[in-house]
């Protein structure tokens, strides 16, 4: 057998858990500083921001205007039922809103944080009862369904509430990522460290923003997530989102699958490691399935600068969605980096040994989870053909 050429098997480095913890504790970024990394992260977040804008609008539309609609056939049309819009939809000239739904379902299923706790509370059930009572008056199908399956409509409302909360979360993140692109264009953000700081500041600013949700039924407004529930942006939605989508499970269709019967999947959801930071950007099996719907969407909104960078790499347009996915993972490591940096229990420059130990334990816990993630993308050369 001939020797496999070295350029075909070049591999990026993978930092150990200790190295990752050390970087977090000294305030270094996880993603290496490199001019191309900056372009990748800022531009892919810009395209992601534009996609999130559409996702956010649609999720909020679905939660408010398609509430308890048993056949929401037109839920992706944002209320525009013109023939031109329907034709574009059928012709797949559109954003893949299914991806946003999958993320909502991941959040709902993994259910962590304050939002999930409130969705299981008696107060929430009371809210559900009130709105179901009103809704079933004029909807015979729901009137039959509710007594037959008493848990069905409350579960549908839980899904609607998560949909709305995710829409609100992405509204903030979309604006943040688009602002980041403007800041980079103006020169105020010129490094990966500055990107992480920018995102961290944005998250901290929005941390206490309230999350609420009301629906209108026959002219009356009903609270589903009332302000008095005290749900806020960071703790109750952002953190559960990161846990569900970044760490536990992300719907990257077409990537490597796992066999539960072969014990490849832990029965403990908390042990799941199939999120965005772990996902394989290379699709497996089924020629023609794209890496994910998200990559298709971001490709539609790809900035010219990043597009030109991709054209110079590997297969140019041929594997552009894989490259988007790899850049997306880099950017998600930056977002995770910002979230970790913003939630250390004590300031990193503290001289108190107790505070240092607490920070150390916090960093170690994150590093242990991240050490088995796709950290090879943190290497600046990982997507380049070595010369």
């Amino acid at each position, binding site marked *: *057998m*001939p*020797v*496999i*050429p070295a*350029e*075909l*098997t*070049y*591999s*990026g480095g*993978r930092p150990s858990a200790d190295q990752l913890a050390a970087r977090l504790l000294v305030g270094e970024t996880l993603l290496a500083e490199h001019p191309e990394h900056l372009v990748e992260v800022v531009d892919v977040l810009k395209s992601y921001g534009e996609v999130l804008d559409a996702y956010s609008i649609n999720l909020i539309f679905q939660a408010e205007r398609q509430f308890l609609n048993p056949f929401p056939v037109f839920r992706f049309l944002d209320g525009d039922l013109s023939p031109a819009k329907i034709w574009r939809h059928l012709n797949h000239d559109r954003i893949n809103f299914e991806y946003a739904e999958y993320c909502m379902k991941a959040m709902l299923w993994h259910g962590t944080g304050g939002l999930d706790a409130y969705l299981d509370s008696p107060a929430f059930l009371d809210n559900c009862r009130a709105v179901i009572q009103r809704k079933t008056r004029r909807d015979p199908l729901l009137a039959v369904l509710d007594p037959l399956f008493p848990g069905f409509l409350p579960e549908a409302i839980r899904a609607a509430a998560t949909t709305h909360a995710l829409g609100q979360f992405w509204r903030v993140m979309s604006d943040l990522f688009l602002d980041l692109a403007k800041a980079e264009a103006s020169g105020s953000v010129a490094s990966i460290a500055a990107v992480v700081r920018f995102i961290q500041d944005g998250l901290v600013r929005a941390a206490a923003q309230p999350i609420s949700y009301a629906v209108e039924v026959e002219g009356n407004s009903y609270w589903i997530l009332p302000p008095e529930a005290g749900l806020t942006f960071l703790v109750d939605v952002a953190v559960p989102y990161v846990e569900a989508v970044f760490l536990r499970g992300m719907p990257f269709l077409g990537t*490597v699958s796992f066999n539960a019967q072969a014990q490849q999947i832990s029965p403990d959801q908390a042990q799941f490691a199939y999120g965005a930071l772990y996902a*394989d*950007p*290379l*699709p*497996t*099996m*089924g*020629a*023609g*399935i*794209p*890496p994910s719907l998200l990559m298709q969407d971001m490709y539609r909104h790809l900035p010219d600068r990043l597009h030109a960078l991709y054209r110079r790499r*590997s*297969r140019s347009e*041929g*594997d552009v*969605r*894989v490259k988007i996915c*790899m850049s997306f993972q880099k950017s998600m490591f930056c977002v995770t980096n910002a979230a970790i940096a913003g939630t250390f229990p004590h300031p990193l420059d503290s001289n108190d040994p107790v505070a240092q130990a607490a920070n150390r334990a916090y960093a170690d816990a994150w590093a242990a989870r991240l050490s*088995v993630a*796709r950290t*090879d*993308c943190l290497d600046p050369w*990982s*997507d380049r*053909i070595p010369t």
Partner: protein
Amino acid sequence: MTLSLLLLIPFLGAFLLLLWPSEPAPGRMRAIAITTLALQLIWSLWVLFRFDPSLEGMQLQESYRWVASLGLDYRLGIDGLSLPLVLINGALTLVSAVCTRDISQRPRIYFALLLLISAAVNGAFLAENLLLFFLFYELELIPLWLLISIWGGTGRAYAATKFLIFTAVSGMLILGAFLGLALLTGTADFSLTPVLSDRLAMGSQLVLLVALMIGFAIKIPLVPFHTWLPDAHTQASTPVSVLLAGVLLKLGTYGLLRFCLGLFPEAWKLVAPVLAIWAAVSVLYGSLAAIAQRDMKRMVAYSSVGHMGMILLAAAAATPVSLLGAVFQMVSHGLISALLFLLVGIVYRKTGTRDLEVLRGLLNPERGLPFTGTLMILGVMASAGLPGMAGFISEFLIFRGSIGAYPLATLLCLVGSGLTAVYFLLLVNRAFFGRLAITPPSPDPVSDSRLDIRLAGVALRETLPALGLSLAVVGLGLVPAGLGWLSETTSTAMAALAAHSGGLL
């Protein structure tokens, strides 16, 4: 002159290349070779146009006295057995030249040898004189030896020498049988005369037939004379493998039908039961050996051993249906094996390996070789004899035509045909399904799912020859009547000859 042009065109092209003044660019020499071979193919199609399939004898015959004292006459003719092979020679030599790229080492000689081989193979298929056939049979030997030993892989010297020794022995046995036939019949006329052997005692016929049989069994190749083939394929470049599998092996099966069955129909009847068992052993051995391979090219080479064995079964049965199936098998195996070697060549060029323990997930739509993988799946389906493709027609005809005469051998060959699906599914499953990788599997899931796959994409022009062959494989599978129409009269006549001579029917 119609048939002579099938020899003259490639011969003149070869001389043109050799005598071309100064040192033209490799691209120009490739263009000359492709133009010449395209002309040859067009002329082959013209011959097809002039051919009358309803006649059972040789057509468009040409005859010139050459060395009368030796009995060597320049006599050419074509019938329903040789015409499909001439066509496939024209097509596959052209494919070989088209898929030869980036040849920097002695391109002038390379393309000239390619043209010489094509001319010699045409000559062998058209020769109506035994010595003339032998001359052309030997003429393709040296160019092919050079193609392997100069442009082959790292073990080319061993493989080329082995090929040379085996096929030289094959040539000697064939020449010995031809000379023995002339000596024992007391005639210096080496023309293709089926009834010549009637004058011989059965013992003499058997001796001559066995010598001839072994000579062609080496070329086909049949177990146990097959060992040169996997080595030659492994070391040969892709275009040479295409030629070897697609065209040159057919010289052996052509000889089997034309000379072994054609010249010794009476003795054939006696040895046919043994030949049927030999065919079953060859088919089963080739298939089982293919399962054990980890080199994709060796796997395809062993599959050839298996599939060529089926032609021996068809010849042993010698019924009109089985002989028609043999012709179909020669054509379909030529197309399918050429397709598979082309695709293995693409995989090797892009990944640097053919090791099934190393390659995985090449069907990956983004960074793998998805179109190559798609054609590979089509190719292995055709080779496994799935309906709708060329392999099905030929295997069905062979099995249908042989089962009455040799049910056990036919059933064993059917098992061998089933094993084709086994080893080719192993190939597809290992190399094309799963997560893309070109590294040996590792127990570490992290390093096992690396992102750093940097295979260059396959340009459309690189897959065009394979695409053309794929279309031909499907076309022949869906519309087999054309080839049947061409060959049926000849194969029926051959079967009648066998039946008339004491017969198998």
